[in-house]
């Protein structure tokens, strides 16, 4: 028995929206999906006219849908933006080399220039080499920290006004959960921000912040967008995986759980009396950091000195190693 579209357009519904419970037909779903992203962009004033915007592109579902929707909205609502795709090649054989082929396809399909930056050229190490040295524990720490900085460097290199990432509502809800479990109050406060800016870096924003992962996949499916899906060959040990499984279990029981967690994170306020780490600049590379030496530089120092644990864990631990080395 066909279910009719809740928007009363007369067509048969193709899906049930997790956020609202509405049954929508294909066209009404596209309209709702795109309009929500548009409203997010406008109400948060994410872009200024004539800006050059870098889209962090991995070839996966989120960045592919992001590039597609931004191009569409830019034309439909005349944002007056220009786009460039920015990809990071971590140097993971059988993973990133394949997905970069998809990004190259995006470049043609969406008529956007593409810049690929590699860990090898930025840091002198590929992820394959890092894993060979440190093993499969903590490797995601290296990759995550390096990628974050690589995107900043890429954005600076391209002289863009803003960098957008494909983070979706599920990603942010997972991060909220992880920061609660870790007791990381500083990040808990920051992680729900739609735009993050800090002195000396290019603003980053997340236009898909309120978009469910499930809807991104459905949108890509019904629009027949080509994306690359795989699992990073090194990823199964990451802490995020546990938060992810938990969140998906919650979603099945109560689909609004994802947006509810996100909203809770946004509502959270920290008393002024709580001491927060001060954010300054790394004395080595000049990028924003709450420590004297940023995480990326610590990790890199550890790799180059053959002491990969140097950058993992607490700063006091790294200081102790550095002191011991200095005395040696």
């Amino acid at each position: 028995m066909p279910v009719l579209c809740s928007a009363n357009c007369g067509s048969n519904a193709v899906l049930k929206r997790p956020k609202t419970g509405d049954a929508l037909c294909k066209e009404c779903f596209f309209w709702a999906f795109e309009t929500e992203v548009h409203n997010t962009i406008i109400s948060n004033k994410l872009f200024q006219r004539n800006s050059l915007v870098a889209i962090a592109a991995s070839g996966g579902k989120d960045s592919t849908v992001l590039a597609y929707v931004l191009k569409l909205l830019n034309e439909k609502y005349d944002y007056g933006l220009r786009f460039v795709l920015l990809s990071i090649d971590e140097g993971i054989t059988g993973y990133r080399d394949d997905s970069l082929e998809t990004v190259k396809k995006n470049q043609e399909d969406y008529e956007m220039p593409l810049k690929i930056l590699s860990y090898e050229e930025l840091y002198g190490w590929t992820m394959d080499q890092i894993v060979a040295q440190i093993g499969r524990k903590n490797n995601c720490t290296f990759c995550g920290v390096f990628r974050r900085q690589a995107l900043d460097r890429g954005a600076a290199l391209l002289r863009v006004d803003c960098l957008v990432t494909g983070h979706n509502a599920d990603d942010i809800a997972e991060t909220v959960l992880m920061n609660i479990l870790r007791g990381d109050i500083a990040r808990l406060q920051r992680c729900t921000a739609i735009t993050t800016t800090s002195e000396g870096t290019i603003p980053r924003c997340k236009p898909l912040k309120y978009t469910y992962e499930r809807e991104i996949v459905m949108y890509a499916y019904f629009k027949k967008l080509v994306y690359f899906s795989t699992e990073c060959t090194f990823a199964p040990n990451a802490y995020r995986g546990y938060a992810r499984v938990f969140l998906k279990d919650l979603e099945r029981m109560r689909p609004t759980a994802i947006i509810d967690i996100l909203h809770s994170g946004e509502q959270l306020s920290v008393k002024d009396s709580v001491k927060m780490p001060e954010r300054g600049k790394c004395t080595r590379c000049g990028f924003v950091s709450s420590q004297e030496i940023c995480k990326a530089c610590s990790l890199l120092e550890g790799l180059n000195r053959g002491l990969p644990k140097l950058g993992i864990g607490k700063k006091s631990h790294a200081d102790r190693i550095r002191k011991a080395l200095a005395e040696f």
Partner: protein
Amino acid sequence: MASCTSSIPSGEREVSECSSATGGAGKELKVNIEFMGGAEMMFDNQKKLNVTLPPAECKWTIRSLLAYMKVHCAKGGGLERFFTGDSVTPGILCVINDQDWELLDTLNYELEPNDNIIFISTLHGG
């Protein structure tokens, strides 16, 4: 394209008094299964399966199809990440003839001949 046939003898079986035993019940039932978004990796990278379900006493549903797939189509590792309990793992979507299974009573949907059933993983990244 891989096929996945039953090891259960598919001879004529008597249709029981199962109330929903109409239409497809008592006959073989062919359906097309497709994996997308990384779900294929949990099935030895097979993207499509043509499944011929043996005659059954009751109508085949997504629930019984999943139980059947677990026994007859499961290959390679990672299957515990596809199946959870009598369903698919949360985060794996199911689309039946281009319709979200959430609109079709999910596990209780009764299969029709030549249904196209697609499992899409949202769990795999870029």
